[in-house]
């Protein structure tokens, strides 16, 4: 039953084929069997079984939702009341959140079961899950390869069937890139579609939570629960949430696909390019037309991102000061010592690097040259997307330049690591929604196809993904040893 989709599981739970307790136990067993992946930071076994019992009772009353009794796992960036919420950092290794993120409340209300909290790059800063205090997550397709990041635990858990589905967050590609590397479906919604309340902030103007699932239909189900205005998040958008399931089977006849030439140039692995070409051909068969477009500002995305995101993070992470919660150094001599050692010891190298970069970019005398300039670039990028998406329905391209790279391969070279997000970062700067769906394999490692839509076009993106998944089976492949 661990290979079933949410819809199939919901049916099984209702027909009495299996109970939520049985289903949950099965996943808990699998988590224990496959500890080698290091996907979970915390497994909430007792809590999960209690929730499963409650779900079975609710299912028996007939007053259940689609997610009632479904075992899912949460990226350890979402605050969960009474459960350790680490954000992948020693800084929060002792932090038991006293409240639930809005997203967690929504899943609880829907009756979903939380199996545990998933490993991630420290404070979501990383593209390989190697910056986690809890160690790297291994890619189920090749345990010597990274799962991608920062939602590496989420991607690996879903690919290896250690959860039916999971949440992720995406600031510069952190849902899409690990989804691509692990062969699953990931959706980064429009900025403001999913509440950020209780989601530990990395870069507030870019962060967005979203679903990481085995297929588009499951993603639609998850997003349905996650999306919506939250009066606790001023940046969440007060717009009605459409029925994401309703249009999944709509025809793609006449769909206009744009391929930015900047996405297919130098830097893209040629075998990956070939996989993407084949995927786009499938879309042609489904009735889509394909045109090449140009988005000249895309090349500016990485430098702009690495000013804006660190600038925001330098302030967002100031609250981790050893005063009220989290890591505190031993025997601080005075206040300055308390700050410098608590932060110096509690944060990892990449987090400190970004705090320093951001602090520098915001400093007197540099603010205009860096922060203001980056904001201008950001506007150009948004304009580029708006213009392109007024001409085509969807933009397609790679998610990452290559398949999952080896553990340890890039961690010593931050610039090279940053470049692995070259195709995903611009989307966060523009705030538009985008997905990664499995489109094939290169040397046994999955390749993701990226689909980018206009603001609030999640339903359309899910439809475009779903139709592709009706005629392909890349998303149904299971890594060896995890069948």
């Amino acid at each position: 039953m661990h290979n079933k989709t949410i819809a199939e599981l919901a049916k099984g739970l209702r027909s009495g084929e299996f109970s939520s307790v049985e289903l949950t136990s099965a996943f808990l067993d699998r988590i224990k069997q496959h500890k080698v992946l290091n996907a979970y930071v915390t497994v909430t076994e007792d809590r999960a079984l209690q929730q499963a019992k409650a779900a079975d009772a609710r299912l028996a009353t007939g007053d259940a939702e689609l997610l009632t009794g479904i075992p899912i796992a949460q990226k350890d960036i979402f605050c969960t009341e009474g459960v350790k919420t680490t954000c992948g950092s020693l800084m929060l290794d002792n932090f038991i959140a006293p409240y639930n993120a809005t997203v967690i409340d929504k899943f609880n209300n829907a009756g979903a079961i939380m199996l545990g909290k998933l490993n991630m790059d420290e404070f979501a800063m990383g593209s390989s899950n190697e910056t986690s205090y809890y160690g790297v997550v291994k890619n189920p397709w090749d345990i010597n390869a990274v799962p991608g990041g920062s939602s590496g635990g989420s991607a690996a858990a879903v690919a290896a069937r250690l959860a039916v589905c999971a949440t992720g967050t995406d600031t510069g590609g952190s849902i899409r890139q690990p989804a691509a590397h692990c062969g699953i479906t990931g959706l980064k919604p429009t900025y403001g579609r999913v509440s950020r309340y209780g989601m530990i902030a990395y870069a507030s103007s870019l962060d967005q939570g979203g679903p990481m699932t085995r297929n588009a239909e499951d993603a639609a189900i998850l997003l349905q629960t996650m999306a919506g205005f939250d009066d606790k998040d001023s940046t969440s958008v007060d717009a009605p949430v459409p029925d994401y399931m309703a249009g999944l089977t709509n025809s793609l006849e006449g769909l206009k696909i744009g391929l930015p030439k900047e996405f297919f140039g130098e830097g893209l692995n040629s075998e990956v390019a070939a996989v993407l070409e084949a995927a786009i051909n499938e879309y042609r068969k489904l009735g889509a037309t394909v045109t090449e477009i140009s988005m000249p500002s895309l090349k500016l995305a990485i430098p702009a991102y690495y000013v804006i995101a660190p600038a925001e993070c330098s302030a967002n992470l100031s609250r981790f000061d050893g005063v009220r919660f989290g890591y505190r150094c031993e025997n601080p001599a005075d206040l300055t010592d308390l700050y410098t050692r608590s932060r110096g010891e509690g944060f990892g190298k990449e987090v400190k690097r970004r705090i320093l970069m951001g602090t520098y970019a915001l400093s007197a005398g540099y603010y205009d040259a860096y922060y203001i300039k980056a904001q201008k670039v950001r506007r150009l990028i948004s304009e580029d997307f708006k213009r392109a998406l007024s001409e085509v329905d969807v933009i397609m391209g790679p998610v990452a330049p290559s398949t999952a790279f080896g553990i340890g391969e890039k961690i010593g070279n931050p610039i090279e690591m940053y470049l692995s997000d070259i195709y995903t970062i611009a989307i966060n700067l523009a705030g538009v929604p985008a997905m990664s769906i499995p489109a094939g394999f290169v040397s046994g490692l999955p390749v993701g196809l990226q689909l980018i839509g206009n603001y609030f076009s999640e339903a359309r993106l899910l439809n475009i993904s779903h139709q592709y998944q009706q005629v392909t089976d890349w998303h149904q492949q299971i890594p060896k040893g995890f069948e």
Partner: protein
Amino acid sequence: MNTQWETVIGLEIHAQLATKSKIFSGASTAYGAEPNSQACAVDLGLPGVLPVLNEEAVRMAVIFGMAIEAHIAPYSVFARKNYFYPDLPKGYQISQMELPIVGVGHLDIEVDGANKRIGITRAHLEEDAGKSLHGSFHGLTGIDLNRAGTPLLEIVSEPDMRSAKEAVAYMKTMHELVRYLGICDGNMQEGSFRCDANVSVRPKGQKEFGTRAELKNINSFKFVEKAINHEVERQIELIESGGTVVQETRLYDSVKDETRSMRSKEEANDYRYFPDPDLLPVLIDEDFKTQIKAQLPELPQAKKQRFKEDYALDEESATILTSSRPLADYFETVVKESGCEAKMCANWVTGDLLAALNKADLDITDSPLSHQRLAGLLKRISDDTISGKIAKQVFEELWQSTATADEVIEAKGLKQITDTGAIEAIIDKIIADNQDQVEQYRSGKDKVFGFFVGQVMKEMQGKANPGEVNKMLKAKLQ
């Protein structure tokens, strides 16, 4: 010696806005609660929490902006001011930097009978920090975050003031204004209204400003004057003895009555302001402004002018009565309800009532004597039911009880006797009993007249109409 120097002062006033909840969270702003009992997840700066702007704080800032005839920004932005301090939970304060909600405006002050217009550069919204509590923690420092997130309006003046006296007048006028507008309770002991002063000196006639020192956290009118005067003296002495003033932040010590250096410009933080990505820009449209304009109360200066014109009050009475909105309202209600001459109402309110309130250390809003009951008393004076003197006695009774003036007059039998027959009988008796004094009076000792009045009043327990008594006595003694 000092006359060749000119003082230049600009003030930054922090007025705590009288909202029920905090500027970015739903926690209460009430003062004096158990430490950390009024700090929610947002105020504690827990991981993952987000600020949500309190619309009431925006409304109050706009009211203020309109009262000082300032430009109200149609688009203003919250920014993060970054610095580390244990009572600053997030490691940054949410404030406004480049785009404040209130732009250039002005406030007119009065010093020694002359009016002066002080420019206001800007006013912006921000959150307050918590408090560090030293002592009684076994050598450790305690943090109370109840105040964290309390809304503040920081009002920045132009360097338009030229003396400590002007600075005090400005601060007082501002204090009166924010209370008038109902946007700040003005409680200086509780820190609801506090100020920093930027002070410099320059040789008279010089255009350029001297180097300024910022005096931090001055919490009373008295200290503003003292702190500025001390700082001016310090700067002048320093320059005259060949030194130079350095730009720095100085703390006023009210106990030692001196200012001392806190940090120099070099040690100053680089606050690394940038727009807070958690909050949307504040958009204020014409509709909102029109709506607020309609709710804007009459301002102190306009009210004072109107009191002088409409009620024919003198400068002093008008000033006292318009010093607070509740007092002015009380006075106007008394005038309306009693139908008495405004001058008399003013005398009673500024005289007996304020004296009694001061003695009991009460504010007009807590007056045990309601305007209805005071009006009831004044009515009985003007219709000659009681004399002014008896009225004082009735006032005492009213102050102590909840009875009306009529009830007191009735119960105590204080009604004035205007029955000329009764008065005449008494007068005749007094004249008959005091022939010596009658002789004296008739021989030209006018002073004795007072004796007769006193005797008659005494006989009539003060209830005789004094005018009537005078008139009749004069006639009888002729």
